């Protein structure tokens, strides 16, 4: 452990963070560095298989996740996961393999190694809210996000399913609100916090995504939010990248910047915009942040 760090984690970024969600990766690394939390990327990690793998082949999905857990075990610390889908798959795999000796045996044969069951898989939110703690997080704030009204969007996979021990209450989670309020922002009460955005249908059936995502943007806007905060690259892609298209289809204007949780928390602990990848967001967040005197 590096002496300057107060905690150490192994880090599983997931595929999106190396491409379409690069700002999530940049801001996560910078935020954790600032908070003196060590992140060591799991060497040569593989795709977790996400939804398509378990959709068509459960054994493949379980094997890919078990392989990643094995790779992660070689790095010190609990496993920090940024993407909600990777997080859900890795946790679900641990749960299924603990419950079913038959499936476990098949997976061990497929990866030709014993399954690592005891490693702890944690989403970044959990690390900020529980391991670091809200008090320590609040103490690190240099520029409180005063006056910024945030709609916290959980989407599907952060809190589900209910039988896997998880992040927070499955129907009424508050972990995102607690984290962002700890750094000075306001949160809004809104209806679509847990509704699905259509996720990977963005490739195969974009029309579905546009319809579902429009309802989410509409609800956030109606609740008086200035912006949306997410912890999942697919939610971000659908809300941010497709926002202009949705506005055109429904002849409306939302103009809601969509932030990763690490971007907003990073801003509050005093990181500069270039360290948070704010220039990468498609809906330009600069006018809003200037208006709130946060830039």
């Amino acid at each position, binding site marked *: 452990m590096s002496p300057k760090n107060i905690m150490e984690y192994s880090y599983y970024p997931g595929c999106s963070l190396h491409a379409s*969600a690069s700002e999530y990766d940049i801001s996560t690394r910078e935020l954790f560095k600032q908070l003196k939390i060590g992140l060591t990327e799991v060497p040569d990690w593989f795709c977790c298989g996400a939804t398509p*793998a378990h*959709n068509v082949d459960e054994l493949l999905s379980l094997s890919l996740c078990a392989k990643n857990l094995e790779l992660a075990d070689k790095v010190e610390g609990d496993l920090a996961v940024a993407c909600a889908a990777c997080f859900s798959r890795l946790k679900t795999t641990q749960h299924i393999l603990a419950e079913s000796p038959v499936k476990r045996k*098949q997976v061990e044969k*497929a990866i030709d190694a014993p399954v690592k069951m005891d490693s702890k898989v944690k989403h970044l939110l959990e690390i900020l809210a529980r391991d670091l703690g809200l008090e320590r997080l609040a103490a690190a704030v240099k520029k409180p996000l005063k006056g910024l009204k945030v709609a916290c969007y959980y989407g*599907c996979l952060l809190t589900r399913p209910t039988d896997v021990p998880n992040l927070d209450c499955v*129907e009424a989670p508050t972990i995102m609100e607690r984290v962002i309020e700890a750094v000075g922002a306001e949160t809004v009460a809104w209806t679509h916090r847990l509704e699905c955005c259509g996720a*990977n249908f963005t490739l195969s*059936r974009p029309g579905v995504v546009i319809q579902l995502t429009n309802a989410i943007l509409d609800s956030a806007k109606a609740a008086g939010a200035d912006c949306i905060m997410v912890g999942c690259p697919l939610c971000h892609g659908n809300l941010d990248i497709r926002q202009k298209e949705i506005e055109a289809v429904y002849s409306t204007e939302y103009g809601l910047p969509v932030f990763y949780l690490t971007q907003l928390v990073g801003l509050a602990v005093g990181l500069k915009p270039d360290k948070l990848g704010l220039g990468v967001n498609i809906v330009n967040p600069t006018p809003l942040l200037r208006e709130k005197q946060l830039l």
Partner: protein
Amino acid sequence: MSLVNKQKIPLSQETMDVDFVRKVEALSGTSVRRCFQCGKCSAGCPMATFMEHPPNRVVRLLQMGQWQRILAGRSIWYCASCETCSTRCPNKVHLASIMDALRKLSWDAEGASKESYVQLANKLFLQNIRTYGRQYEMRLAAVFNVRSGQFLKDLMLGPKLLAKGKLKMFQSKNKNMSEIEKIFSRIEDMRAKGEAL
């Protein structure tokens, strides 16, 4: 007897394929008999409006052993795996796992829907893992458009995403690619020998 194209199937001993339902239950680790049709799954399902059989009816058809009506349609391919249904079921029927089991059993079921773009996207996604170890989003989108004949789909998004660095033109291969190939081929091998589901 080809039942697939019929909209409705009379309920009888002959039409009730209990063996198939047992396979679904074994794969999903959940029992369809626990469902008492409260409809809470369909009420919360974000995709129900796109399905011809909403989630509670999928379970009802399984209870009656009429799986052909489910597999011939698009319901299972419009499930987003958001798991709202499993979360809210008062009887702990894990509907999201049932959907996974049905999609898997549709591989070689006679009369199952094969047209779906969703299936194409899933297939390309898994091919990418086998070839690169990780997702290669640029290639995934490009190949999907070509293979689905929608050459212009999301064309306007491309340059913007490239300029922002959100799409990578080249993907570096994972260093231990032989490991991933071994996992894929071991699973194929186990299936061929009947050692895996």
